[in-house]
């Protein structure tokens, strides 16, 4: 079971109050975690990754264990503390003014 923290607006869209817990098939990669998230909350499809290409939306970031995983390929294994549930995978709206 991994933990995922969504940004405020996606929590509203998914109608969840806090972090979500997901069962992810092994190997627990970044892409597998996002697949599991979208399967559990289909309304999030297209909001984190583009519908067609599954590319990360430009103004979203993936952080875990003080590392930026945003530019890692989807088959990147998540850090061990995320896999064990000790640390969450953070999905973050990038800083932007205005």
């Amino acid at each position, binding site marked *: 079971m991994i933990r995922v923290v969504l940004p405020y*607006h996606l929590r509203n869209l998914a109608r969840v109050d806090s972090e979500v817990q997901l069962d992810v098939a092994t190997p627990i990669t970044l892409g597998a975690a996002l697949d599991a998230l*979208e399967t559990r909350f289909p309304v999030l499809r*297209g909001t984190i990754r583009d519908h067609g290409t599954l590319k990360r939306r430009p103004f*979203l970031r993936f952080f875990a264990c003080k590392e930026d995983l945003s530019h890692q390929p989807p088959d990147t294994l998540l850090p061990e503390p995320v896999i064990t549930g000790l640390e969450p995978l953070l999905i973050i709206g990038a800083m932007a003014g205005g």
Partner: protein
Amino acid sequence: MSKVRVLVGTKKGAFVLTSDGKRKEWDVTGPHFAGWEIYHLKGSPVDPNRIYASQTSGWFGQIIQRSDDGGKTWQPPGSTPEELRSPDGSPKAESNKFVYEGDAGTHKWYDGSQHPWEFKRVWHLEPSLTDPDTVYAGVEDAAIFKTTDGGKTWKELPALRQAKGHLWQPGAGGMAVHTIILDPKNANRIFIAISAAGAFRTEDGGKSWRPINRGLKSQYELPDPDAEVGHCVHRIAMHPSRPDVLFMQKHWDVLRSDNAGDQWREVSGNLPTDFGFPIDVHAHEPETIYVVPIKSDSEHYPPDGKLRVYRSRSGGNEWQALTKGLPQKDCYVNVLRDAMAMDSLEPCGVYFGTTGGQVYCSANGGDSWNAIVRDLPGVLSVEVQTLADGAKRRPTKAAAAPKRRQSKRK
């Protein structure tokens, strides 16, 4: 007694403003979808409680929302628990899946090179005049999509981009289908407008399209001022009783066509400036039209700091400034292309929203104005629904089709 429901899309959420037929006291609800850009909301002319909204974000992309109770509650179409999965167990929820048909191809980019078509957002939603589940969506990069299942899935009408799409080029605000007008007398005829490509018409329900830009002059924007495509059309409007008569606010110039866009002629007349964004037609007087002149293409505010709506009762050329109740000094707001609408009460109500967050209403055809609200986020769109008594009940198609329940004409 009739009432009106004004649907306001802003840069940070949607607002619903309601009043009785007097249009003096208003109830304001919102923000709905707080923090998101709401490019457009529009109700079904068949079922006024069915409202569609385009919710967008630079971070999270496109969401389509739908209300079936007049804007009280909302749901992305196809996302109820029983709809979330297809029979094989895979997730559905494709209400925000706008994918171009086939090879998306390329259009002209700012530097003149060719650039791949990329979906960015839905600018405009135009519900069918006869079916509450059918809606057309005008999107950026410019294309038109259609749903026939209440917004659960969308399919492009790709022939539009075959109308010399490789020559279309974005303006400063992007390249989007921002106007969709359905002909109430001919279900196969649709008019659309694109910045910066021009106006187009289909006579076969979207299977083929052709440019309708003859008579447009863009000598300051295009190397060929009479080009077949490439014009920056800001808005077109039609009165439903006369589908062959169209009015246009172009980047510069106000124009009209009396033959469904085959030929346009300028009717800017005595306007202080003929730059602007919205144009609309009085609900009961097909030759009475409204524009909001803006100083210039680089100074998007009213001339002299005076917010003036201009009305022509002769279908153009002769314009009268309408100022009573509008700020006549130190006003430097803009009025965007989708931010003007009419109700169909008697007398006709005229509404517009500003980038400064004001929504103004005139309950007398523009003779005088009052601000319904003054401090919303910047207004992106305004639509008005004129609701008869008992509108909470869903009317039958046969009963509702002849009525103009949704009074804004595109």
